[in-house]
């Protein structure tokens, strides 16, 4: 049977994470910024699963993935609710236009 080095997965997760960071900095739309965060979380999950696989028997890695997913879900729920409120108050999804809280 054929084999894949773990490092492939790790590199992939690194790339995805980096892209997530870029999106996080680059995007202006609140919702897409949330998506960027989700992307980063996913990258981390991939790394977790890969490590778990590398370590074999015990599946603690999966547990972490599980928790990350749960947290991500809650984060999305609350975040989107906030986004809705923001839009209702500011009539804009552009995060650069939501800048009252300063100095």
């Amino acid at each position, binding site marked *: *049977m054929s*084999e*894949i080095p*773990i*490092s*492939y*997965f*790790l*590199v*992939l997760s*690194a*790339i*995805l994470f*980096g*892209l*997530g*960071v*870029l*999106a*996080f*900095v*680059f*995007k*202006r*739309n609140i*919702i*897409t910024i*949330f*998506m960027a965060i*989700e*992307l980063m979380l*996913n990258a981390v*999950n*991939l790394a977790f*699963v*890969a490590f778990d*696989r*590398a370590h074999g028997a015990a*599946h*603690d890695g*999966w*547990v972490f993935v*599980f*928790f990350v*997913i749960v*947290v*991500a*879900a*809650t984060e*999305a*729920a*609350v975040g*989107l*609710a*906030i986004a*809705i409120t923001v839009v*209702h108050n500011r009539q804009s*999804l*552009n995060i*650069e236009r939501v800048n009252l809280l300063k100095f």
Partner: protein
Amino acid sequence: MTLPLILFFVFAGLAVLGALLMIFLREPIHSALALILVMVALAALYLLLGAEFIAAVQIIVYAGAVMVLFVFVIMLLNAGEEERTNLSKLAHYVGWPLGIFLTVELVYWMSRATIGARVTTPTIAPGDPTRDLSMLLFKSYLFPFEITSILILIALLGALVLAKRDS
């Protein structure tokens, strides 16, 4: 070039493509679709790593629930194209290069990780991994598990309050 390797590259490519699309598409819903693509690809990769349960959960929760929520909200707010304002000089001049630098750095170190030498055969993990996982969750990780349930409850309430106030 063996079958699993091919599959890996296919799905990895899809994932990266999706991520890039998510960044460069201006329509929020397109970004959302791109992200869904990433997630599905990741699920497939999980299967390659023998994490069936995680793959399923990934699709159910992320693709099936979280992203649906995103799409739903986008539809609800009828979010149009995002405007590329550049009010933040910092983000404009520093953010980009640093982000790229971070990516490169991470890739470099990840590729050099000692654990990376291990190889994985894309078969199902021995035994009943799902059972093991549940054992872990409900035995050694019981407390965190309960905490997360409380977290979910709180998030639910918070979302409720936020949504209720402006309705």
